[in-house]
C-alpha cells in the first residue's frame, strides 16, 4: 500500500450488454452504496437500463460484481421490476441479498392522512388546540389561586428559596440589558420630540412628553418585552427540559406539586421583580432623555428633574408599577403554560419556546391596551 492516508476507491458500478450475445446483461464493478453515490454513477446505470431491449428473455450475469450490498442489490431488484429474472447468474454469497429482497416482498409506506387547512378535520383540530390552550391557562390560574391561598395560610413553609433564586435570575441579571435599552430609547425619543417641539417653540414641553410617555407607557412595555424575550423563553425551555428528563414526573412522585414549587415561585418572582425593573427602566430612559435634551436643546438636568413632578401626575407612577406587576405575572403564567405542554422531543421544545415568547409579547401588548382603556381618564391634568 503506497499511501495509507488515501482510502482505496471501489471500482465504478457498470452495467453493459455482452458484445457477443446481445441478450446477456453483465453487471460488474462495486455495487455498493459508496460507489453508487459517486457522481454520475446512478445516471450511467439508468441510461444503460433504458437502452436495454425489452425482452423477458434477458439474461443477467452478476458474477462479475466485486462487492455487493443491500442498496446495490435493491437497485438491480427494482430494475427487474421487483422480481427475480428467469435467467440469473450469481456469484457465491450474492444469493443471500436477493433472497432477503424476495422475502421482504413489496414494502410500502402507509399513506399519511393529510387534510387542507380549511377542511372540517383541520378546523376541528385547530379548535381543539385552541380550546386546550384556554382550558390549560384557566386550570393554571385556578391552581395558582389555590397555591397562593396555601402560601398565605402558611407563609413560612412557602418556597422562599425558589422565589429568591428567580428574583435574582430574572431581575438582577437583567439590570444591564434593561438599562442599556432604556437609556437608548430615552435618547432616541428625546431627539425625536425635541426636533418637533423646537419648530414651534415648545421646548419646555419636552419634559412632559418624555415623562408621560416613558413612565406611563414605554417603561413598563419595554421592560416587559425584554423580560418576555429573556426570561419567558428561559422559563419555558427549563420546564420543557425538565419534562424531557422526567424531572417533572420525579417531582410529582416525590409529592412536590408543580404548581406550588415551580409555577407559583416564578409568577410571584416576576410579579415582584417586574415593577422594580419598570422603575429602573424608567429611570434609565429618563436619564437618556436628559442627556439628549442637554445636547439638543441645552436644557439642564436640574431643570428637567425639577419640572418632572409637575409634568407627570403621581397616578402615572402607580399605573406604571401596576402594569409591571400584571405584565410580569402574565409572562410567567404563559411561560409556564407552554413549558408544561412541551412533549419530550426537540421539535416540541423549539416550538413551545417560540410560541411562549410570541404569545407573551402579544398578551403584554393586549394587556397594555386594556390598561389604556380602563385608566382612560386617570393621571392627566
Amino acid at each position, binding site marked *: *500500500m503506497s499511501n*495509507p*492516508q*488515501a*482510502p482505496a476507491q471501489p471500482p465504478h458500478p457498470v452495467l453493459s450488454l455482452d458484445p457477443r450475445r446481445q441478450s446477456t446483461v453483465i453487471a460488474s464493478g462495486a455495487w*455498493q*452504496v*459508496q460507489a*453508487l*453515490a*459517486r*457522481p454520475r*454513477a*446512478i445516471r450511467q446505470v439508468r441510461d444503460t437500463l433504458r437502452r436495454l431491449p425489452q425482452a423477458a428473455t434477458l439474461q443477467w450475469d452478476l458474477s462479475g460484481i466485486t462487492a455487493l*450490498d*443491500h*442498496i446495490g442489490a*435493491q*437497485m438491480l*431488484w*427494482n430494475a427487474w421490476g421487483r422480481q427475480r429474472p428467469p435467467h440469473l447468474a450469481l456469484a457465491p454469497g450474492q444469493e*443471500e441479498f436477493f433472497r*432477503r*429482497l424476495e422475502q*421482504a416482498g413489496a*414494502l*410500502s*409506506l*402507509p399513506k*399519511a392522512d393529510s387534510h387542507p387547512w380549511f377542511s372540517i378535520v383541520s378546523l376541528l383540530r385547530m379548535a381543539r388546540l385552541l380550546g386546550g390552550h384556554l382550558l390549560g391557562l384557566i386550570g393554571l390560574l385556578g391552581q395558582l389561586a389555590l397555591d397562593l391561598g396555601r402560601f398565605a395560610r402558611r407563609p413560612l413553609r412557602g418556597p422562599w428559596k425558589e422565589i429568591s433564586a428567580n428574583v435574582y435570575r430574572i431581575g438582577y441579571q437583567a439590570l444591564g440589558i434593561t438599562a442599556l435599552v432604556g437609556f437608548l430609547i430615552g435618547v432616541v425619543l428625546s431627539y425625536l420630540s425635541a426636533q418637533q417641539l423646537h419648530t414651534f417653540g415648545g421646548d419646555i414641553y419636552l419634559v412632559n412628553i418624555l415623562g408621560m410617555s416613558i413612565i406611563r407607557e414605554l417603561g413598563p412595555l419595554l421592560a416587559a418585552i425584554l423580560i418576555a424575550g429573556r426570561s419567558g423563553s428561559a422559563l419555558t425551555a427549563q420546564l420543557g427540559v425538565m419534562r424531557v428528563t422526567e424531572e417533572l414526573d420525579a417531582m410529582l412522585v416525590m409529592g412536590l406539586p408543580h404548581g406550588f414549587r415551580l409555577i407559583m415561585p416564578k409568577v410571584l418572582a416576576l410579579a415582584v421583580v417586574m415593577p422594580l425593573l419598570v422603575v429602573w427602566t424608567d429611570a434609565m430612559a429618563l436619564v437618556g432623555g436628559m442627556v439628549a435634551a442637554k445636547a439638543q436643546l441645552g436644557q439642564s438636568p436640574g431643570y428637567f428633574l425639577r419640572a418632572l413632578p409637575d409634568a407627570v401626575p403621581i397616578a402615572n407612577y402607580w399605573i406604571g408599577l401596576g402594569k409591571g406587576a400584571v405584565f410580569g405575572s402574565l409572562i410567567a403564567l404563559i411561560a409556564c403554560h407552554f413549558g408544561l405542554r412541551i*412533549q*419530550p*422531543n*426537540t*421539535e416540541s421544545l423549539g416550538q413551545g419556546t417560540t410560541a411562549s415568547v410570541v404569545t407573551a409579547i402579544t398578551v403584554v401588548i393586549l394587556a397594555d391596551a386594556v390598561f389604556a382603556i380602563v385608566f382612560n381618564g386617570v393621571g392627566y391634568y
Partner: protein
Amino acid sequence: MKDMQPVIRIDGLTTRFGDFVVHDNLSMEVRAGEIVSLVGGSGSGKTTLLRQVLGLEKPSAGTVRVFGMDINRVDAATLRHLRHRWGMLFQHGALFSALTAFDNVAQPMRELRTLPEDLIRDAALLKLRMVDIAPAHAMRMPADLSGGMVKRVALARALALEPELLFLDEPTAGLDPALSESFVDLIAMLHREMNLTVVMVTHDLDTLLALSSRIAVLADKRLVACGTAEEVVRVKHPFIEEYFLGQRGRRALQGMRELRDRNKGKGVHDGK
C-alpha cells in the same frame, strides 16, 4: 480480500480531564470481522474511548487509526468518507426526534445527494424490516416508539450506509431480557450477513458472552486483559474476579458453558 491490517489500532492513548487521568498509555487492536467488547467499571473510560475512536473527542496523547487512517490527522474529505464506512448505535438511540422513524433511516442515504428517492425508500424500508420494524410503524415519531423499537430503528439508521464497522454503546441497556436476547440475535445475524466488524461497550454479561469474539477489560487506566472469555477469566485482577467470578458472572459463565456443551453434543466442534 481484506488486507490484514487491523480495522482499529490504538497506540499509546492517554486521556486527561484536568488532573484526572482516564487512560494512561493504552493500546489495542481490532481486526476485521471481530466482535470486540469493552468492559470496565463505571468511570473507567469505556465510552470516552469509544468517542475517541469515533473522533468525537481528542485524546491528550497517542494515536487512533481506523482503517489505517489517523483519525485526528486526516483531512476533512477523508474523514467524511471514513464516517460513511462506520455506523454508531448510541446508548439511547439518539434518533432525530423531529423526523419519523423512516426518515431517520433514510437521512444518511439522502445526505449522499445522489441516490434516487425511490431507491432510498426501498432501501430504508428493507433496513427497517431487517431490524423487525413493520412499515406500519415506520411513520411514527421517535417519541411514540417504545424503548426497544427506538434501539432497533437506531440500529437500522447505523446500518443505513452499509458500514464495515459498527459501534454499539450499551446495545441492550434498558431492554427486557427477551428483547435483549432478540437484539443480541439480531446483531449476531447482521454481523454474519453484512461482514461487520463490531466494537461494543456493554455492562450486560449475557450480551458480552453471547456476542464477543474478544473481550477487552479496561481497569487501572489501561487494558488489563484482552482475549476470549476463557482467556480473560484466567487473568488475575481484582476487577475481573469481581466482574466475571462474582455471583452474576459465574451464572452467566455457567450458562455459556452449558450452551457450548450442548452444541458440542450436536456435533459442533471447536479446535480443542
